């Protein structure tokens, strides 16, 4: 435990005043020219920029993305293998069994998973992520995954990713041995706000699973949500801690308040704040895949979706989410074509 704590990032608490003086010039010189990520104070200064500065901020973030990640956009589909009935109490999630959400518990069978993987591949996607609403996988779920991964790999040319909650070292290695390409486990929130979001496990446990995933050689997908009532400082903290963790991919979710959850009555995040987050996360993570995840349709709409793709985002989830619906995949693909952003080929994902 001591070793784990020693490896965790420390978040500065000093005033951002100095860093905020001309943060856009700093971002251009430090991140764009030298490729060095922003510090906590600098991320905070980005999040405090005005609406008048937003266009320039997004332009810098886009230049950073293009220089260090290129024009390609990674496309992914996600699917729920086991929906609902989760014992955890993540306050944003309609799948917790602790809330009065209308989501009923259900398992998807393997033929349906394979069918969904094929349809996802047909969109040009290179990644198909299987998700289960659990604290962590038990033996039954691991066996389901083994069968599902084998069935998909036997008939669909697509990378298989997984998100099954907290892992021990043996489970992480087992998933890597199955051929799981990337494992998702979000920090969800900055460390200081996390206890307001989840009480059934700790931020440290999530950090530990992330380290176990990296140790196996699987790519780590780790992001979080914004718009959950956190302060701007705590938003900056999440971006800074993700920068310290160095995941391969960061999925950025915007809270979509779900009926029956503790966060069900929170307001939808203003679009300009969401766009500032996108730019800030890109500048905190210049060489990381930054993916549009849940909530973008509600928070940003069509115009904001375009602005985000021109402001640091270089990956999308196409189609539906786990309990909510997304845009028609063809609309996203047409937008990428219009923006001259080619879909990343499967052969470029290793």
């Amino acid at each position, binding site marked *: 435990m001591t070793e784990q704590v020693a490896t965790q990032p420390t978040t500065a608490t000093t005033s951002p005043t100095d860093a905020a003086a001309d943060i856009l010039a700093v971002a251009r010189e430090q991140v764009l020219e030298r490729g060095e990520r922003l510090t906590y104070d600098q991320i905070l200064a980005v999040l405090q920029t005005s609406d008048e500065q937003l266009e320039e901020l997004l332009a810098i973030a886009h230049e950073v993305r293009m220089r260090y990640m290129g024009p390609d956009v990674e496309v992914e*589909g*996600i*699917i*729920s293998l086991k*929906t609902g009935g989760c014992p955890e109490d993540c306050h944003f999630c309609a799948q917790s069994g602790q809330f009065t959400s*209308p*989501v*009923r518990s*259900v398992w*998807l069978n393997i033929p*349906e998973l394979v*069918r*969904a993987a094929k*349809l*996802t591949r047909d*969109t040009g996607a290179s990644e198909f992520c299987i998700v289960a609403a659990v604290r962590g996988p038990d033996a039954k779920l691991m066996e389901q995954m083994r069968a599902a991964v084998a069935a998909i790999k036997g008939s669909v040319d697509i990378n298989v990713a997984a998100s099954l909650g907290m892992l021990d070292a043996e489970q992480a290695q087992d998933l890597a041995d199955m051929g799981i390409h990337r494992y998702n486990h979000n920090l969800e929130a900055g460390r200081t706000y996390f206890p307001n979001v989840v009480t059934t496990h700790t931020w440290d446990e999530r950090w530990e699973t992330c380290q176990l995933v990296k140790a196996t050689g699987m790519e780590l997908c780790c992001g979080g949500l914004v718009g959950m009532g956190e302060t701007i400082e705590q938003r900056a903290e999440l971006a800074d801690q993700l920068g310290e963790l160095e995941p391969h991919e960061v999925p950025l979710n915007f809270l*979509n308040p779900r*009926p029956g959850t503790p966060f069900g009555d929170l307001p939808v995040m203003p679009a300009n704040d969401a766009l500032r987050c996108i730019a800030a996360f890109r500048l905190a993570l210049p060489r990381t895949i930054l993916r549009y995840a849940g909530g973008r*349709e*509600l928070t940003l709409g069509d115009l904001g979706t375009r602005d985000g793709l021109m402001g640091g985002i270089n990956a999308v989830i*196409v*189609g*539906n*989410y*786990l*309990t*909510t*619906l*997304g845009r028609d*995949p063809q609309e996203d693909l047409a937008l990428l074509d219009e923006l001259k952003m080619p879909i990343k080929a499967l052969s470029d994902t290793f």
Partner: protein
Amino acid sequence: MTLISPDAVFCPRCGQPLGPAGIAGGEHAVCRRALDLEPPRYCVYCRRRMIVQITPSDWTARCIEHGETTESTWAPA
């Protein structure tokens, strides 16, 4: 577009009774807007919570009494 069914009694999103305005108006206007980005969760005939399965390209919602609704047969209002 037309209402899901003239016999619909309950809101497919919140499960509360539909008024004379149906799902397109009154207290369920918010539900109607939300259903652009959500599948139905409650059976509109009996208010049972349905078993909903979502894939990247489609969804199904099944009531044990009234059968299955799919994306292709669904038109909330």
